[in-house]
């Protein structure tokens, strides 16, 4: 009973995620695409919960939905002009792009079906926050410090590129 309920939840989430992703890549209005992407990232957080990754789901909601998407919505609002809605939003190579992405998807699905069929969860989901913290400050401490350097570089780069030309010269 519980398993079929989980499967039902997964099916609903998968349908929602695929639909929202198609809206992201095809909608004429970029603003609508950004809103759909926000919802899709929320659904991905739900999938993480389904997979027993509670800490990752929380950081997905906080960082992606709360941080990145807000910045993205701001930039969309700052850089659009009213007549952009009327323009075509795909370039001339969309047929080849669609064929290529279809080929990649089919190859991935065939390969995944061949290799990873019928693997079921052995342990029930359990809280993972403590073990993720121990991993990040134990075995993964060197990448952890490297990422802090990357974040500093990104911060400086974002401030520099965000300045206007006049302010940059000073």
């Amino acid at each position: 009973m519980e398993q079929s309920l989980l499967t039902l939840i997964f099916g609903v989430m998968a349908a929602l995620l695929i639909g929202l992703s198609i809206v992201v890549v095809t909608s004429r209005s970029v603003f609508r695409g950004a809103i759909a992407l926000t919802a899709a990232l929320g659904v991905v957080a739900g999938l993480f919960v389904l997979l027993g990754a509670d800490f990752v789901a929380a950081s997905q909601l906080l960082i992606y939905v709360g941080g990145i998407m807000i910045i993205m919505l701001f930039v969309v609002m700052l850089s659009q002009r009213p007549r952009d809605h009327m323009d075509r939003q795909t370039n001339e190579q969309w047929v080849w792009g669609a064929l290529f992405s279809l080929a990649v998807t089919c190859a991935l699905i065939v390969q995944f079906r061949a290799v990873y069929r019928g693997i079921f969860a052995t342990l029930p989901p359990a809280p993972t926050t403590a073990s993720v913290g121990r991993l990040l400050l134990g075995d993964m401490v060197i990448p952890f410090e490297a990422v802090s350097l990357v974040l500093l570089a990104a911060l400086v780069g974002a401030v520099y590129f965000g300045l206007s030309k006049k302010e940059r010269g000073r």
Partner: protein
Amino acid sequence: MILSLHHFLMLSAIIFGIGIYGALTRRNILGVLMSIELMFNAANINLVAFNHFLYPERVWGQGIVIFVITLAAAEAVVGLSLVLSIYRTIKSVYTEKMNILHG
């Protein structure tokens, strides 16, 4: 039907394909950035699913997902400030207009 690993893998393959389509065909540079975020998320679903189904007693997959989310945040911030800077210079967000370096 019981949930198994390849359900999640197939879902993420479909999302990844949609992201590739968007990154190849959107004219708007912001649309390209959003498609790249979709592809990041497909990879994250894969990592967490492998962690849950194959190595449930360890959390390396989830640790790597934290790094991917962090680097995606850094990438998005730098990319978006570049987009704003480009928009200020050439007054357009369409990729075919961004050919100043073309000579």
